[in-house]
């Protein structure tokens, strides 16, 4: 076997490993935001503000971890802050004539702006990172070990997806959310306060998006700066549509997007110097391709909550 072939072989494996590792590492914020948005959209409302919530969650988690020295306190604060943003969105949307998409865009800009403003002093200091579990301990290869270092938040998200899938079918709260999202009239006829259901669903969605932000600043990439999210919160909203509002499909879609996001850095790391920037765009291109491919001019989206179509 010649040296060049071995190198190429290792290069391919390295890219594959890096993509798998990246899928696990990069997917977590996608997963949390999309699960949160699934809850919100299943209740019949769209919250585009989750991008802002994600960025604010990242800032507040990082700042809290710097000040208290505990990354878990950071996660808690990020979740609370996200919940406040969600409740704010839900509260504003209760007023008659308010459009949830417009409010979402306003909150997206507000969340990011507030995070940049309050986060200025925290760009320099370093915060303690969230712990990861080395599932690759059995291997001697550093690439394998790196790929299989799995953060606890990823595991939490991976458990949350099947739980939500179960809860939408088997709990009263899950069914009420679906009723509110599919037919507000039916929900009112049953005596449920549709606005309140949506308020809580948006709040919960905000909590999850905030936690997703904590992962960004406290684990990967693991620092606080203004370009930390680069639109991941918005892509996660598109991902919900691609996943057909199904939490299990959200998990798969998040892994796919994570893997696509890891492609650029992986190619760069094995020494591809030309055109790897093109692969940095992979998640965005993937979003477009998937949305076009899974849509049809002749069919309504299967699984779309009825109230969203109005």
């Amino acid at each position: 076997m010649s040296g060049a072939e071995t190198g190429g072989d290792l290069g391919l494996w390295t890219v594959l490993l890096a993509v798998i590792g990246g899928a696990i590492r990069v997917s977590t914020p996608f997963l949390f935001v999309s699960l949160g948005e699934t809850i919100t959209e299943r209740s019949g409302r769209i919250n585009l503000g989750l991008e802002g919530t994600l960025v604010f969650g990242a800032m507040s988690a990082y700042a809290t971890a710097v000040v208290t020295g505990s990354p878990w306190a950071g996660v808690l604060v990020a979740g609370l802050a996200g919940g406040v943003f969600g409740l704010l969105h839900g509260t504003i949307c209760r007023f008659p004539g308010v459009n949830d998409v417009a409010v979402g865009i306003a909150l997206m800009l507000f969340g990011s702006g507030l995070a940049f403003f309050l986060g200025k002093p925290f760009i320099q200091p370093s915060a303690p990172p969230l712990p990861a579990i080395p599932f690759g301990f059995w291997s001697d290869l550093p690439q394998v070990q790196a790929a299989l270092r799995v953060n606890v938040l990823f595991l939490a998200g991976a458990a949350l997806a099947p739980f939500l899938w179960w809860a939408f079918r088997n709990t009263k709260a899950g069914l009420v959310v679906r009723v509110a999202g599919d037919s507000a009239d039916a929900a009112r006829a049953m005596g449920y306060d549709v606005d309140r259901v949506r308020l809580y669903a948006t709040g919960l969605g905000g909590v999850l998006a905030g936690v997703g932000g904590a992962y960004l600043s406290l684990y990967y990439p693991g620092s606080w700066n203004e370009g930390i999210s680069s639109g991941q919160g918005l892509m996660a909203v598109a991902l919900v549509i691609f996943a057909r509002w199904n939490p299990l499909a959200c998990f798969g879609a998040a892994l796919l997007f994570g893997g696509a996001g890891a492609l650029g850095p992986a190619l760069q790391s094995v020494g591809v110097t030309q055109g790897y920037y093109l692969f940095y765009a992979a998640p965005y291109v993937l979003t477009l391709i998937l949305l076009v491919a899974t849509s049809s001019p002749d069919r309504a989206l299967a699984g779309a909550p009825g109230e969203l179509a109005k």
Partner: protein
Amino acid sequence: MTASTSPDPQTRPVSGAIGVETIGMTKRFGAFAALEDVSMKIEAGGFHALLGENGAGKSTLVKCVMGFYAPTAGTVLVDGREAEITNPKGAQARGLGMVYQHFTLVPSLTGAENLVIARADAPAVIDWAAERADFAAFMGRMPFRLNLDRPVAELAAGEKQKLEIVKQLYLKARFLILDEPTSVLTPAEAEEVLGLLRAMTDRGELSVLMISHKFREVEAFARSLSVLRRGRLVGGGDVGAISRDEMAALMMGERAVRQPIARLGAADPDRVILQVAGVTATDVSGLRHIAVEDLRVRAREIVGIAGVSGNGQKELADVLGGQIRATGGQVRVGGEPYAGTRAESRAHRVRFIPEEPLRNACAPRMSVAENLAFRAFDRRGEDPDKPPTLWLDRRAMGRRAKDLIARFKVKTASSEAAIATLSGGNVQRAVLARELTDPVDLLVVVNPCFGLDFAAVSEIRSRIVSARNAGAAVLLISEDLDEILELSDRVLVMSEGRLVYETPAAQADVGVIGRHMAGHH
């Protein structure tokens, strides 16, 4: 213990029929009295029919009973005791249930999920194994067989209606209000459903109040009836003691009913205007498919397509109107392929009047004048044959609107009022005014008289017949079989997405048509 003649709630039986009585029910919306001093009593175990024209106050009355509306005056007695019902949940708690004309089931939930979540005491975590066992026992006592594991969206209209009734019984309704329950059922299904409910009332398990305007149904299943006209109770009594003519006279009051004008001349056998050949299509949900082998409509001919709602009529109309694309086959108008574009409909003089015209044929918040101008607003001088123009000719639009409003007797405050402020009949008149003033070769109409009162109905039907007499080919898709029989030269029946039966209207047999509508052929 207090001395009271009415039984204590604790000792009241928790099952069995209950009676309901209204005393002096009155409901005013502003100056308009929708309901005026209506007192009526439905005995426990009774099957009472409530008759009346559209707008007579039937729905208002039952909505007051169910707590949707707060009555302006009057009280409701449930089981002989005065009941303050302020919302539908309170009505449910007292054993009152209602099946609405529109479905209240949640489309994406399965039947079982719909039943459980409608229950006031739905558990936080649902034990589906236990619920399923409960359903099996409950459905064993039910008159209908239903698959509860399918999402409601996939059920046919008849199955949905049955599920609505089952839901009320599952919620332990002992007094059931049905708002025109058979409008989406085949004649055989209607017979089955009403027969089983009647049997339940005979056993003393249930009382039923049914809003209807089908005399045959009332005579076959109800035990007593009341007639409302313009918000007042004008008569009633035991079924059998009142003849059909008397019922009709009570409903209509004294006024001349204009019969539609007669069809003149015969269809032109050589001029096939509309030809649908082998067209297949699927609706947006992807669930309903249609396959229309061969449908021809000739000049000076009205072809009526009868069928129970949800058997593909809407999809056929959508293909003809260009709302959905055919997956196969071809639609030809005047011998040329037709896809429903604006240019094609202009060239072939095709007019399309969809159902629910306010939603599907109007821009509700734009003015009557603007809505009337949709056909030719982009042509010079509002004339469809002139070349296109960039600038709207407001003055010509206004002139034309005033002329059409006068000619078609559209009742509106002004030509500048939003069309959504008009009544249903006047919206339909305005749409007909827009579609029928210029020469028409092909007219497609869907449920043109749904929800309109008698006067508007006969006038609108006359307009359709005169378009035919003037030489137009008319395709009439309607769920109202009487309308089809009254207007058509030829009757077709659509069932499960296919045209399954054809007969000249002169030889039409309602029984045979009904069997084909029900899919038994």
